[in-house]
């Protein structure tokens, strides 16, 4: 067990998972990921390279992945906007890679405070074309490590890029982490281009100039994403068994919501937490199951109503949802969240 920052835990996880290269560009509040990678990767005979831009970094990742190795990059919203080109190409060429986004406040340069306003950017696309990004949402330093490892596994299993979507608080916070043993589960990658006789016939591309070929390629991708949607929904519940109200939240907001649930229960309001661990695929099935017995659903997020859209889509029952949000790099204050839930439960919101 070791006390580390969430951002450091990402690199511990990556190294344990057999990640061979890190390509990145500094940006607050994600920079400690690059600092930690710069310190450890070369000492283990692996590659750390500070790229000339976010665009170059994601394309170096594209090259390293095409060459058959586990590889990653990390950034924050403004950098992810630039990397989105590469995400589309990675998805199109079916190349596995891990991309970590430690969200700051936007739009534009915004500020470096924590926000969750890259939700739509990550969960709904970001890059062009028909593709989906698997999005994992850690809420602790432990999960920054565990979900980075999981991201490499999912990326290889489905040959597609996977994002770990954290926020400034989860990245900057130090907590005790129990690290697993080295777990490089990289499968054989017969499709890679390794510059040898065996892979000489291989070609990795996302261009299908012939319309029928691109239609077939898209159909195959869509089938793959449907399989992911069916198999990879993940969530965690807390005190939901007898709950009269469930707060839906992820990342730092779910940490606050957890404390609010405890405080509400002390006052006789049976609150519970529904925490999506995958934002895509959104844990629809779990949420619908919970919503059948929990009458009131409340959504809390550090964005102006992005998570709540997916909650509405998942429930699809027209029920009124409670809502609390903040932005500008500011968290929802614990007492503000608590009061909003109380008002909602009493029918006043």
């Amino acid at each position, binding site marked *: 067990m070791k006390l580390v920052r969430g951002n450091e835990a990402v690199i511990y996880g990556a190294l344990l998972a057999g990640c*061979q290269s890190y390509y990145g560009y500094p940006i*607050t509040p994600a920079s400690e990921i690059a600092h930690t990678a710069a310190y*450890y990767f070369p000492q283990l005979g692996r*590659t750390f390279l500070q790229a000339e831009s976010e665009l*170059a970094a994601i394309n170096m990742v594209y090259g390293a992945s095409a*060459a058959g*190795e586990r590889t990653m990059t990390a950034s924050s919203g403004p950098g992810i906007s630039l990397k989105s*080109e590469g995400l589309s190409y990675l998805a199109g060429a079916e190349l596995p890679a891990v991309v970590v986004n430690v969200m700051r406040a936007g739009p534009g340069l915004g500020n470096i405070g924590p926000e969750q306003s890259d939700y739509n950017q990550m969960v709904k696309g970001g890059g062009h074309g028909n593709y989906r990004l698997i999005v994992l949402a850690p809420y602790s330093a432990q999960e920054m490590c565990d979900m980075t490892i999981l991201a490499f596994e999912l990326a290889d299993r489905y040959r597609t890029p996977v994002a770990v979507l954290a926020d400034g608080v989860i990245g*900057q916070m130090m907590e005790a982490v129990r690290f697993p043993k080295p777990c490089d589960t990289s499968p054989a990658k017969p499709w890679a281009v390794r510059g040898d006789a065996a892979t000489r016939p291989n070609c990795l591309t996302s261009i299908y100039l012939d319309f029928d070929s691109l239609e077939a390629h898209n159909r195959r991708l869509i089938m793959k994403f449907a399989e992911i949607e069916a198999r990879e929904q993940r969530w965690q519940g807390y005190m939901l068994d007898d709950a009269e109200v469930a707060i839906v939240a992820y990342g730092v907001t779910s940490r606050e919501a957890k404390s609010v649930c405890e405080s509400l229960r002390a006052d006789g309001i049976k609150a519970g937490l529904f925490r999506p661990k995958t934002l895509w695929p959104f844990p629809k099935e779990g949420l619908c199951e919970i919503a059948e017995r929990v009458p009131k659903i409340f959504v809390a997020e550090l964005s102006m109503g992005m998570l709540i859209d997916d909650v509405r889509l998942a429930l699809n029952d027209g029920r009124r949802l409670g809502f609390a949000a903040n932005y500008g790099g500011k968290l929802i204050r614990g007492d503000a969240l608590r009061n909003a839930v109380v008002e909602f439960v009493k029918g006043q919101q």
Partner: protein
Amino acid sequence: MKQAEKSIQKPKSMYARFERKPGEDKTNTHYCPGCGHGIVHKLIAEALDTLDMAERTVFISPVGCSVFAYYYFDCGNIQVAHGRAPAVASGVTRANPGNFLISYQGDGDLAAIGTAEIIHAANRGEKMTVFFVNNSIYGMTGGQMAPTTLLGQKTTTTPFGREFMNEGNPIRIAEMIAILDAPVYVARASVHNIKAIMQARKSITKALQAQRDGKGFALVEILAPCPSGWKIDPQESAAWVEKNVLPVFPLGEFKDETVGREGISRARNAASDEQIISLLGLDTAPPHFALSNPKAASLRVLCAGFGGQGIMLLGQMLAHLGMRHGLEVSWLPSYGPEMRGGTANCSVVFSEEAVGSPIVEYPDLLVIMNGPSLDKFLPALVPGGVLVYNSSIIENAPRREDVQIVAVPASDLALQAGSERAANIVMFGVIVSVYGSFSEEAYSHLLAEFFTSEKILGINEKALRAGMEYARNI
């Protein structure tokens, strides 16, 4: 084989049939009549044959007319986004340093949208050979202006001719790359007539040979006709190059250090699991201690002061201390510009259960190192909570009747211990004494871990004792 026979034979490094090419015709390229790409492709493939490089070669196809280079080259092929070929090639060569990388790019790809990538790959001396085909126009997208378009040249986006006042001058890539230190070979050649093609063959071979010999980055800019884009007859294009292009883009070798240059080695070593565990420090568990009373078992702490007063370190030491006494802990800094001057604060939570919110809005313990932080945070201290403040700096005694207030002349005590910078450790000494929950052995361990210089450790040990003693005498 005689040159005449060789010139009509297809090189082995090209596929015998172009199976990836859609449509019925699997033997001709997709290039227009009179286009330079086909000639350049053939020269590259012949050089790969001569140097026996194809098997280990990874060919990067760009965006532009040569986006389909992978129809033709019998190598590992990767097609990439517009302008990013040198970045992708960098990732490939770092992964497999024994590979030969060819980044084949046009003038929009390399000289416009990908200028950052080409400059930096060249500057790092990545092991790759770049073939930059300059036909002074965007062929594939419909004859628009390229950065290499000549002044006065009409294109679909310069219908009245390129003008310096609006679009600037044509850009000379080879000359620009040649001034960097890392590239080993930089030349400009042309394929507009037989004599030029013979010279281009030499340059292309030399650039690939440099890579085969492990010397690093080479770039050959190749002037190529684009009769379709130029809207002239293919037969007239050679004369057009002579008359218009060559005066702006002179041919020649701008840099040749293929002889005498040391090779670039970026070979990797595979680390064992044991090495990984040892480097990450996962083979040693931190020492474990028992709490001697439960006063600190559930505690929300806020530390605040000026940047540079060691606020973050103080908070981290408390978090380590809690963890080593079996508590669940979190430490959360204010981060970013605040750390670079101004005020700094951090939240530390101790709990017997998993920590919920790591943000301390209402602290049980408030540790304050400067006046502005006192004004800001004192109202949030919970009734019955503890305030420890630096009375060396804060002159006016804080007013709250419902909390325990501990005034510590931390800066003065630290100065006596050897450095004012140890004021945070004086505060640490006071805090551990006030609660009396933690093992003394645990702090000594921690100090020794945080301060590795003997001199600084000595000062901080004194500061710690001064703080503990001060608290005992309150």
